[in-house]
């Protein structure tokens, strides 16, 4: 797979239709997200749009590890959770305010940095494959700790708190002549809009920062490490140092995404941040979109999120429609959707390891 993504990358440098198609899709998604509150004003769509924004940052940061550097970590939700829990605990203890978001968020990011350095230096020096196991163990310990230290974290129930005042639905961003909340294109300019654009712009900034990182010399060294570790070491790059560095960078971005998630949801619990299900989501999104391209993350997150929110409805309809046939309704039950995703995942890794973005770019490049 490493060589297919390399070809796709080289192909991407040339002018071709596949590349244009990928850019067009990404641009369309970006525009849709930018105007989401106006295009899809209902509450559920807002929720989906915000989740897509945050997960694009999260998944792209994971792609820095798996796609660009070729290291598999299962601890990404741990860092995501550290950012979210830091913010959530501060908001809960100090009350809603920017100081709480800042303080709690910084604490979460600091914890993520320390843990990432510890894990990185400890296990990246041994066989790369240890790393997957060590991170998996670390993540599950963090999950157990979060549910056991219930005085701080609220245990399994999680924490419910209020976001800073600017984001509350009662806040009036713009008022009309009559003193009521102004509506632009039938959308009320209240705190909800502010919250959405806070999430959108922050995610966008994180995404551009990552695009910058992969285009920088650091990104090139990382790809060199992925392609041939020994050779990179022989040329004079300290592989352990570079791997640890990118692991820390990815951890910080994940923690920042966690802060956004915590402020948007106004709830933080194991199921929304730390759980293994989220880790699997991230993996699926990266693989579906395409490893080793930042655009792949955008596509993968969008496809998966839409599927998650809307495919279940479809499956339920299918289950009801096939209720008379013996086995089918069981297989189509909405709870079983992970089964199908698992099968899809395996098939993707076999046949399209480059994902949607990679396959598109490669096909047109040939």
């Amino acid at each position, binding site marked *: *797979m*490493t060589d297919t993504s390399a070809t796709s990358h080289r192909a991407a440098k040339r002018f071709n239709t596949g590349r244009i198609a990928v850019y067009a899709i990404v641009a369309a998604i970006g525009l849709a997200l930018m105007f989401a509150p106006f295009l899809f004003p209902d509450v559920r769509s807002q929720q989906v749009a915000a989740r897509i924004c945050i997960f694009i940052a999260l998944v792209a940061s994971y792609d820095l590890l*798996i796609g660009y550097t*070729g290291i*598999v970590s299962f601890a990404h939700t741990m860092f995501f959770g550290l950012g979210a829990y830091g913010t959530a605990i501060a908001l809960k203890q100090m009350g809603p305010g920017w100081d709480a978001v800042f303080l709690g968020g910084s604490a979460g990011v600091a914890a993520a940095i320390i843990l990432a350095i*510890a894990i990185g230096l*400890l*296990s990246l*020096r*041994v*066989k*790369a*494959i*240890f790393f*997957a*196991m*060590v991170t*998996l*163990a*670390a993540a*599950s*310990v963090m999950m*157990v*700790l979060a549910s*056991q*230290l219930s005085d701080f974290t609220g245990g399994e129930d999680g924490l419910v708190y209020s976001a800073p005042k600017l984001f509350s639905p009662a806040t009036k961003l713009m008022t009309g002549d009559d003193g009521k909340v102004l509506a632009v294109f039938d959308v009320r300019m209240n705190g909800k809009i502010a919250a959405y654009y806070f999430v959108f712009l922050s995610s966008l900034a994180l995404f551009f920062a990552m695009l910058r990182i992969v285009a920088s010399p650091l990104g090139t060294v990382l790809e060199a490490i992925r392609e041939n570790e020994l050779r990179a070491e022989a040329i004079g790059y300290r592989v352990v140092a570079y791997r640890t560095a990118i692991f820390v960078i990815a951890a910080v971005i994940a923690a920042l995404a966690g802060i956004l998630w915590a402020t948007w949801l106004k709830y933080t619990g194991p199921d929304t941040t730390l759980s*293994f299900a989220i880790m*699997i989501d991230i*993996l699926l999104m990266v*693989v579906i979109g395409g490893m080793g391209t930042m655009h792949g993350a955008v596509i993968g997150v969008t496809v998966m999120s839409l599927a998650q929110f809307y495919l279940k409805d479809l499956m339920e309809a299918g289950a009801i429609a096939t209720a008379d046939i013996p086995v089918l309704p*069981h*297989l189509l039950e909405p*709870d*079983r959707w*992970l*089964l199908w*995703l*698992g*099968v899809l*995942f*395996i098939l993707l*890794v*076999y046949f399209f*390891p480059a994902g949607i973005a990679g396959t598109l770019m490669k096909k047109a490049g040939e």
Partner: protein
Amino acid sequence: MRDLVNRFGGVNALPVILMIIALPLVGSFPTWVTLTVAGLAMGMMIFLMASGLSLVFGLMDVLNFGHSAFISFGAFIAATVLAALAAWVSADSFVLNLAAIFSAIAAAALFGLLAGWFFEQVIIKPVYRDHLRQILITMGALIVAEQLILMIWGGNPVAVPRPQILSGSLIIGDVSIEIYRIFAFLLGLAVYIALYVTLKRTRIGLLIRAGVENREMVEALGFKVDRLFVAVFMTGSALAAMGGAMWAGYQGLISPALGGEIMILVFIVVIIGGLGSIEGSLLGALLVGLLGNYVAFIFPKLSLASNMVLMMAILLWRPWGLRPAVKP
């Protein structure tokens, strides 16, 4: 100093040292005995699950994240068999009781063999020598397997009946020891001895050990390591399923999340012990089992975290594990 340490068994003495340290911390002798037996029994069950994973990795450089699926399936199959043989389980006869538990374990192991063969052929074979895709694909297979378990047995915890003869405790003085734990320990020990003899005394074992050390060389000498690997993979899966079956009887109540929870311990054991060696797996499993039980008694909330700390400490000390099959 080094000679002195080696004379007392070197790293092999670690579980004993751990036991001695734990005695004053636990405080009371009967409690210590109970905890130690529980730790040894747990260690042996984890050893069953870890040994296969370790050998598979050592021989073929294949890391199977789907290993825990075999553990879960083994546990649920054993529960189903025991429930079906309810008459034997509750019978007042020594023979029928043992027949029930052994047929449950055998059913799990048989499933492990067959499913292992299928898994190797369909899931693993296309991605030999590609770690990234191996991890991803076995992860995908794990998701599918867990969903299948949910589909077949449902999401609610399943009760596992325990045969008459294996329930209850032995009481010696003021020390009480659960009989099932002794059974688990003895069965694990028997499997360890069988594995040890196979690996060290037979021709197949010689080939496996040689393959772990240097696969290319064994292939160059004309042996089909791929075919050997299928056999090792099937055995490893069967052992995992057996471990799962034992674990089901130990817990008495099992839920589909069981495989994933134990898998963390199995990974820690494999890392501590050193990939590719069953001695290492045994050592790691005993350490993890003992430490987990002692810490669960002294600081109940830190049980899993303690094993993580143990792993970190050992990785700092010996990055390749305590007894790796091949010394770098």
